[in-house]
C-alpha cells in the first residue's frame, strides 16, 4: 500500500485543528470541524473496506525510525481489534461534534481544537505498533481531556478535571516503568510485535502484569480505582462524556488485549481468577450504585462501570466466546452508552436539570426523543434484538465456562441493570407530566437526529446481524488465544 492510510487517519484531525486555529467565526469553526470529522470517518471506512478479515497479521503497516539510539520507531498498523475501534473512535468523535453544536457556546474554537486533537490521539493509541509511540499518544490524551472537562464542564469541573488527571497520570506512570523494564527484558526494542514474540520468565511477567494492571484498571475503570469516573462524567460536557465513555474506557480493555494477554500470557492465565473476581465485583457494585442515583448522568456513569465489568469478565475468561463477546461488548458499550450520554445532554440543554425527580411524562412532549431513548435503554439492558444482547450472551457463556461464580454474579448484574434502567425510563418518559411541564421541551431537531440515527442503526445492526462485526475480530481473537494458551487452542 503506497498511501500511508493510517497516518492520514491519525493526522487528518490534527490538520483540522491547525486549520481551526486560524478561523474567527464560530459557525465556520463548527462546520469545519464537522467536515474534518466526516473525512476522517470516510478514511476509516476506506480502511475497513480494504481490510482482510482472514488474517491476524497487522495490516496497512507503516514503519519509520524515530529515535534510533533507543530503538524507537514510528510504527502503525491495525489488526481486527484495532480496526473496529478506529471506526468507533471516528464515529463517536463526529457525533461529539454534533452534540456540542449549541451546547458549547463559548470558546467554541478552543473546544473544537481540543476535540480534534483528542480524536487524533485516540486514533493513534489504537494503531500504534511501538510501545513508546503508544505511550506518547496514551499520555498526551490527558492534556485535551483535562481542558475539555475543566473549561467546559459543570460547576464542579475543576475538581473533576484534577481528579481525572491525577488518577490517570498516577496509573499510567507505573505503566511507563513497566514499558522500560520490558524494553530491557525484551532485547532493547519497543516494537510491540517483537515484544509479543518474547518469552519472558514468570517472575518478570507477574511484576509487569501488575504494573500494567494499575494503568489499565484506572482507565477501564475497575473497582476500586473507579472513583474518578462519576465525577469526570457528571462534570464533563456532553461531548466529553461521549468520548470518555465511548472511547477512553475502551483503552484500558484494549491495553489488556494488546499487552497483558499476548506479552504476559502466563501471568494472565495465573491471575485470571483475580481478574474475574474484580470484574464480577465491578458488575454488581456498579449496578447497585447506579440503582441509587437520582442524577441521570451519574446513573449512566455507574452503569458504565458495571458494563465495563462485563468486558473485562469476557476478556479474562480467556476463551473464544468470552473474548469475542468482550470485544464486541466494548464496541456496543461505546455505541449505547455514547447514545445515552447524548440523550442526557439533549434533555439537559432544554431543562438544565439532570435530576430524575424533575422529570416525568416526557413521552407527550417529545415522542421521538422518548422512542429513541427506549431503544437505547433496552439496548443497554441487553434486550434480545439489540447489540448488547449478542455481546452479553457471549460474555456470559464464556464467563460460565471459565468460572461459575463469576458468571452467576454477571447474571445478577444483568438483572440489576434492567432494574435501574427501566426505573429511570419509567420515571422520565412515562407517568404524569406534572414537573417537567414547566420547561419548554421541544422534540429532537434535524441536527440532533443526524447524531442519533447512526447510533440507532448500529444498535440494531449488531443486534440482528452481528456476523460482520465478529468476522472482523475473529482471526485476531483466535491468534490471541494461541498466544495465551499455546498452539492448538483456537477452539
Amino acid at each position, binding site marked *: 500500500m503506497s498511501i500511508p492510510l493510517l497516518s492520514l487517519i491519525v493526522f487528518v484531525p490534527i490538520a483540522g485543528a491547525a486549520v481551526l486555529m486560524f478561523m474567527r467565526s464560530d459557525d465556520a469553526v463548527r462546520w469545519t470541524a464537522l467536515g474534518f470529522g466526516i473525512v476522517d470517518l470516510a478514511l476509516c471506512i476506506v480502511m475497513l473496506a480494504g481490510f482482510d478479515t482472514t488474517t491476524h497479521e497487522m495490516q496497512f503497516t507503516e514503519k519509520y525510525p524515530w*529515535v534510533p*539510539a*533507543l530503538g524507537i520507531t514510528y510504527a502503525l498498523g491495525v489488526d481486527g481489534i484495532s480496526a473496529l475501534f478506529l471506526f468507533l473512535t471516528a464515529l463517536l468523535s463526529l457525533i461529539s461534534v454534533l452534540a456540542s453544536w449549541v451546547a458549547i457556546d463559548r470558546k467554541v474554537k478552543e473546544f473544537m481544537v481540543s476535540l480534534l486533537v483528542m480524536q487524533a490521539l485516540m486514533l493513534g493509541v489504537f494503531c500504534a505498533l511501538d510501545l513508546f509511540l503508544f505511550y506518547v499518544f496514551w499520555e498526551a490524551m490527558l*492534556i485535551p481531556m483535562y481542558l475539555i472537562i*475543566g473549561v467546559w464542564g459543570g460547576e464542579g469541573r*475543576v475538581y473533576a478535571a484534577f481528579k481525572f488527571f*491525577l488518577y490517570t497520570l498516577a496509573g499510567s506512570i507505573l505503566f511507563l516503568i513497566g514499558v522500560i523494564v520490558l524494553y530491557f527484558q525484551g532485547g532493547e526494542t519497543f516494537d510491540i510485535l517483537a515484544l509479543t514474540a518474547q518469552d519472558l520468565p514468570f517472575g518478570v511477567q507477574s511484576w509487569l502484569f501488575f504494573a500494567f494492571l494499575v494503568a489499565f484498571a484506572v482507565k477501564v475503570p475497575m473497582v476500586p480505582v473507579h472513583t474518578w469516573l462519576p465525577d469526570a462524567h457528571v462534570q464533563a460536557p456532553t461531548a466529553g462524556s461521549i468520548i470518555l465513555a465511548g472511547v477512553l474506557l475502551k483503552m484500558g480493555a484494549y491495553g489488556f488485549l494488546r499487552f497483558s494477554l499476548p506479552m504476559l500470557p502466563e501471568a494472565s492465565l495465573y491471575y485470571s481468577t483475580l481478574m474475574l473476581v474484580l470484574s464480577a465485583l465491578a458488575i454488581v457494585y456498579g449496578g447497585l450504585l447506579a440503582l441509587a442515583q437520582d442524577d441521570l448522568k451519574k446513573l449512566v456513569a455507574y452503569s458504565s462501570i458495571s458494563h465495563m465489568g462485563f468486558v473485562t469478565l469476557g476478556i479474562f475468561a480467556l476463551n473464544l466466546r468470552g473474548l469475542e463477546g468482550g470485544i464486541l461488548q466494548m464496541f456496543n458499550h461505546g455505541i449505547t452508552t455514547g447514545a445515552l450520554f447524548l440523550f442526557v445532554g439533549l434533555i439537559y440543554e432544554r431543562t438544565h436539570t439532570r435530576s430524575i425527580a424533575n422529570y416525568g411524562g416526557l413521552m407527550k412532549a417529545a415522542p421521538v426523543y422518548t422512542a429513541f431513548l427506549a431503544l437505547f435503554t433496552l439496548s443497554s439492558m441487553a434486550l434480545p434484538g439489540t447489540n448488547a444482547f449478542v455481546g452479553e450472551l457471549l460474555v456470559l457463556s464464556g464467563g460460565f465456562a471459565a468460572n461459575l461464580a463469576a458468571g452467576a454474579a454477571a447474571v445478577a448484574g444483568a438483572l440489576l441493570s434492567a432494574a435501574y434502567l427501566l426505573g429511570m425510563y419509567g420515571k422520565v418518559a412515562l407517568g404524569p407530566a406534572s414537573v417537567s411541564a414547566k420547561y419548554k421541551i421541544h422534540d429532537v431537531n434535524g441536527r440532533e437526529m443526524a447524531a442519533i440515527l447512526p447510533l440507532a442503526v448500529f444498535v440494531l445492526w449488531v443486534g440482528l446481524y452481528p456476523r460482520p462485526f465478529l468476522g472482523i475480530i475473529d482471526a485476531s481473537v483466535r491468534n490471541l488465544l494461541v498466544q495465551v494458551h499455546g498452539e492448538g487452542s483456537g477452539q
Partner: protein
Amino acid sequence: MTAAALLQWVLASIPEIIVVIGACILLLVGELVRKGRDELLLWASVATVLLAAVATLMLAGEMRPAYSGMFVSDRFAVFFKLVFYLATVLTFLLSRKYAEIEGIGRSEYYALLLFALVGMMIMASGIDLLSIYVGLELMVLCTYVLTGFLRKERRSNEAALKYVILGAVSTAIFLYGVSLIYGLTGTTQLDRMAEAVSGGPLDPALLLAVVFIVAGLVFKIGAVPFHMWVPDVYEGAPTTITAFMSVAPKAAGFAVILRVFLNPLVEASNAWIIVAAIAVATMALGSFVALVQDNFKRLLAYSSIAHAGFAIFGVVAGGQDGTASVMLYLLIYTFMNLGTFGAVIMMRNGDFSGEVIEDYAGLAKFHPGLALLMLLYLFSLAGIPPTAGFFAKFYVLVALVERGFVALAVIAVLLSVVAAYFYIRIVMVIYMREPERAFEPALTPLVRATLAFTAAGTIGIGLFPAWFLRLAQQSAFGG
C-alpha cells in the same frame, strides 16, 4: 614550555578569553553609552556570547588539554558551554524590557552576567579541583551581586545577604574537602586522584572528603539538605536573574558533579547511596512544598528543586546513558524553564507584578496565544508527552532501569505525579478562572522572539528527540 604549547593552551581557552575581553570592554566603555541607547549594551553582550559560541563550535572537533592538566576543552565541556550560551543569550533578550521597567539596565548588569558565564565555562572545562574552584567562585560572586541588584528593594537585599552567607559556608566546606583530598592523595587533579587510590583498600577519610565536596556542590544545584536559600533568593532576585540562576549555574553545578562523580575514586567510595538519598529527598521536598505556594516565583523555585532531584537520579544511574540523560535533561530544562520565566517576566508591567499565581486568572480569555504557550511549558515541566519535558524524564528513567534501579525509578515517577499537580493547577488558573483585570503584558519583539524560540525547543525536542539525544550521548564521557 614552548611558544607553540602556549599557543595551544590559549587556543583551547579562546571562548573564555573572548567572553572576558567582551565583559571588560563593556565595563570600560559601557558607562559612556548615552541614556536611551541602552540596547547597544544588549547587542554588544549578545554579540560577545555568539562570538564565543562560534569559537567553541570551531574547537569542538578534538579534545584539547591545556594549562598543565588544569583545563580541558572536550565534547563534554562543549555541550555544557552551549547550554550556558543559550541560557545567557535568552536571559539577555528577556532583560531588555524588564531592566527598563525596573531601572537596572546598566552596563554592570550585562558585564556581571558575562563574568558569571566565564565562571561557568571554567567549571565545565576544569579537570582539577582548584580550577573548578576558581570558576565556581567567579560564578557565585557575580550571582551574589546580581541577586541584590534591585538596590532599593528590601527583598532583593535580604536575598543577596542570605545567599552570600550560605554560599560562603558551602564554598568553605567544598575547599575543606579539596584539602583533605590533597592530604590523602597528594594531588587535586581528577585523573591523578584516581591513580593514587587504585589498588589499595579505601581510606575512610576519603569518604569524608568526598562527602564534603558533595556538600559544597549540592549547595550550588539547590538540592536537599542545602536548598534553604533557593526560595528566598529566587523570590528576591530580579526575575531575569532568577530565570538565569534556575538554569545556567545549576547546569554548571551538574557539569562539575558529573566530572567528579564519574571519577573512579568516587565510584569506589560507594557515594552513590548518598546521592540516591539526596535525589529522593530533593525531589520529595521540592514537589511537596511547591504544592502550597501561592507566589509564582517561589513555586518555580521549589519546582527547580524538584527538577534538580530528578536530574540527580541520572547521576545515580551513572555510565554513559546516565551522564547523557543528565545533560539532555539540563538542555531541555533550559528551554522550558526559561520559557516559563519569559512569560512571568513579560507579565511585569506598570504596577502589575505578575508574581502571584492568582494574577494569571483568566489569561486564556484575553491572550489565547500566550496562554497556549504557558500550557505548553507547564505540561512540559510536568513531563507530559509529546513535550520535551517528557523525553527528558523518560531518558533518565531508561538510564536508571538499565542499571537495575527499578525501585528508584518508581519513586521518581510517583513523585513526579505530585509535581504534576502544581503545574496543572496553574493551567487551571489560566484557563478555568474568570479574569479579574485586564492584562497588559510587555510583549516586545525581543520577548516574543524568546518565547517563540523556547516554545520551538520545548515542542521540537519532544517530537524529534533523536538528534539531541545523539548529541548528548556523544558528548557524554564515561561509557
